[in-house]
């Protein structure tokens, strides 16, 4: 789960990481009030879960009350790469002497935390890595030993930061590691890590991704959940406890188990179709979950046909069939369904569907047969964006612009650790900001 800048800074402060003074604001009035309290100049910052805020005009300096009002007005409601700005953070402006970059993340390849430091902060980390891969110093931390002073010294000397701030930057990294562990974070990133003219070290930005599985340990963080960037179906699915990801095609897809659902998307794409979504109804899916899932899939108006691909292990096919029958009783279904049931109680499931004789429900025996059928029923729609498995479009950097950072940093990195971190474990699961 990604946090907004001001939420991340709240966690930072609780672990002793220094940040400039600031106040969140949801209205222009609140923004002006915050400016008055803090004293000008202040920086008015859009709070969105995506990068490129500065370039999009979402970060502005205000020297007085009028400018604060003007900027707050302009930024609130702004659309930054598809994310509407609902909140601002008003922060005391800092006198910048140096801008560094620091991050702690989970390196999935090495199965260890990794800390990174660069003296070339303030810009895209991708860009730093491109200009000078050696400019990003990296160390792995043994999770049973924790961050030691020597880790900080190694990073500082290797990154070549100013000699007079080696100690305070090391101390900052140690506190960031405390935050990383203490908050069960997957990523803690500071860009820029600022050295002020008074030679103080402060975190000017905060990108924090926390582990959703650990939220039970952090009830206050759990309250911070931001629905920004989540569309209607995704929100609905989350409320029903389903794993749903919206895609841009017209074939609705439901399966049980993430791997099988991913494989189903691939097979549909190979058959020339375009998946409208990923929906994992989970292991042991019961009839009610199936009803909810049908509702979520059909609430996307682009869906022209739906494929159910179930291989029952814990999940019982008769439960899935019963759920589908119930859904058809409750929801006005106008698109065709293709259903493939295999595994536990598959015969019972198929019998239930045969007895119910639902309009527009086609039962197929194999996964490939079902994929071909649903693509045929869905029709062409538009030009396929993905036609063959081999023709997957080049991935668009999830974190172009001032973000995504830690993960992107290593793409062009030269050492093995970097390449591993780039692999994805280090990557925030949502588009970062």
């Amino acid at each position, binding site marked *: 789960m990604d946090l907004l800048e001001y939420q991340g800074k709240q966690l930072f402060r609780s672990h002793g990481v220094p940040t400039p003074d600031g106040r969140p604001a949801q209205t222009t009035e609140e923004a002006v009030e915050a400016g008055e309290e803090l004293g000008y100049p202040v920086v008015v910052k859009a709070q969105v879960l995506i990068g490129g805020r500065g370039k999009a005009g979402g970060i502005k300096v205000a020297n007085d009350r009028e400018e604060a009002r003007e900027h707050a007005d302009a930024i609130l409601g702004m659309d930054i790469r598809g994310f509407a700005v609902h909140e601002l953070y008003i922060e005391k402006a800092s006198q910048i002497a140096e801008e560094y970059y620091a991050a702690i993340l*989970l390196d*999935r*390849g090495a*199965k*260890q935390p990794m800390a990174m430091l660069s003296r070339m902060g303030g810009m895209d980390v991708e860009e730093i890595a491109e200009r000078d891969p050696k400019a990003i110093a990296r160390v792995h931390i*043994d*999770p*049973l030993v924790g961050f030691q002073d020597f880790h900080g010294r190694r990073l500082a000397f290797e990154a070549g930061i100013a000699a007079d701030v080696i100690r305070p930057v090391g101390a900052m990294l140690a506190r960031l590691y405390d935050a990383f562990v203490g908050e*069960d974070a*997957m990523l803690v990133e500071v860009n820029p890590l600022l050295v002020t003219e008074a030679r103080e070290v402060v975190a000017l930005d905060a990108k924090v991704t926390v*582990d959703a*599985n*650990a939220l039970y*340990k952090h009830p206050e963080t759990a309250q911070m959940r931001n629905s920004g960037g989540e569309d209607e179906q995704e929100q609905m699915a989350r409320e029903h406890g389903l*794993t749903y*990801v919206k*895609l841009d095609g017209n074939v609705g897809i439901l*399966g*049980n*188990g*993430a*791997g*099988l*659902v*991913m*494989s189903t*998307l*691939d097979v*549909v*794409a*190979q058959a020339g179709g375009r998946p409208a979504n*990923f929906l*994992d109804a989970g292991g042991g899916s019961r009839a009610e979950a199936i009803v909810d899932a049908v509702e979520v899939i059909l609430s996307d108006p682009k869906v022209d046909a739906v494929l159910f691909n179930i291989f*029952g*292990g*814990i999940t019982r096919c008769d439960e899935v069939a019963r759920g589908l029958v119930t859904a058809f009783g409750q929801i006005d279904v106008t698109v065709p369904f293709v259903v493939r049931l*295999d*595994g*536990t109680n598959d015969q019972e499931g198929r019998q239930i569907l045969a007895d119910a004789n639902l309009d527009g429900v086609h039962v197929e025996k*194999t*996964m*490939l047969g079902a994929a071909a059928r649903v693509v045929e029923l869905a029709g062409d729609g538009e030009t396929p964006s*993905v036609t063959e*498995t*081999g023709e*997957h479009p080049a*991935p668009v*950097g*999830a974190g172009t612009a001032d973000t*995504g950072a830690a*993960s*992107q940093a290593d*793409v062009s990195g030269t050492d093995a650790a970097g*390449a591993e971190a780039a*692999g*994805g*474990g280090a*990557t925030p*699961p*949502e588009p970062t900001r």
Partner: protein
Amino acid sequence: MSVLVGADTKLVISGLTGREGTFHGMNNRRYGTDLVAGVTPGKGGQDVEGVPIFDTVHDAVAETGANTSMVFVPPRFAADSILEAADAGIELVVCITEGIPAHDMLRVYTHLRRGQTKLIGPNCPGVLSPGKANVGIIPAHFFSQGGVGLVSRSGTLTYQIGNELAGRGFGNSTIVGIGGDPIVGSSFIDVIAQFEDDPETELIVMCGEIGGDEEERTADYIAEHVSKPVVAYIAGFTAPPGKTMGHAGAIVSGSSGTAQAKAEALEAQGVRVGRTPTEVAEVAAELSGAAA
């Protein structure tokens, strides 16, 4: 032979008294697995359908000689149960539990790597050696004894591929679900190394998915250390970058970790990659025909 679990397995289940624990534990026992004990603190002295319950794993090991543990407790207690099993001298822990915090697993993984206990999972379907033992939630009736070693990050996709293989007459030495979390106890490489040494395994099928670089590293390992034929499948070609597809592990972002990159890395090392589960079985048939 087989790997990880077999005729010598003596199983203790943490969480046997829970609803899911009882259901799957009894399933495993009906399959023929030697289920010797359950552990639930405070319920020592009771039994579940004749299987004795102990307060601690240490007691269970001392009384029954258990050598394998299955963890079936809620996520907030699972890391502790794995560590308890390792401390009690258990050789293999299979953790089914989904949703364990990553930092808990970091500590568990690091500790276990320094000792003798192997871990499969968490967030996995378990290990099945057909005809010998089933430890986990894999529906055993789809699988028969044979020469294919199957290792996968996913559950239901494993059943799909296993079923396609069965349709072509293949049985399995062992089926191992290593789990879909960012930190799992055993990697593809760990399991494939065991298949390479297992006389019953003639062909290896690995089933990966987007995210991380496990598959790429496994490709290099296979090229250097594996003499048996390997067929691979990768799920997630159509996954958009930057989105999580259910498994915490299945994340794509940037240019690495994509299904395409993984398939290419495997093929570059001579591993055949099936583009659909059906094609995996076709390639396996072709390779075993060639080997015979």
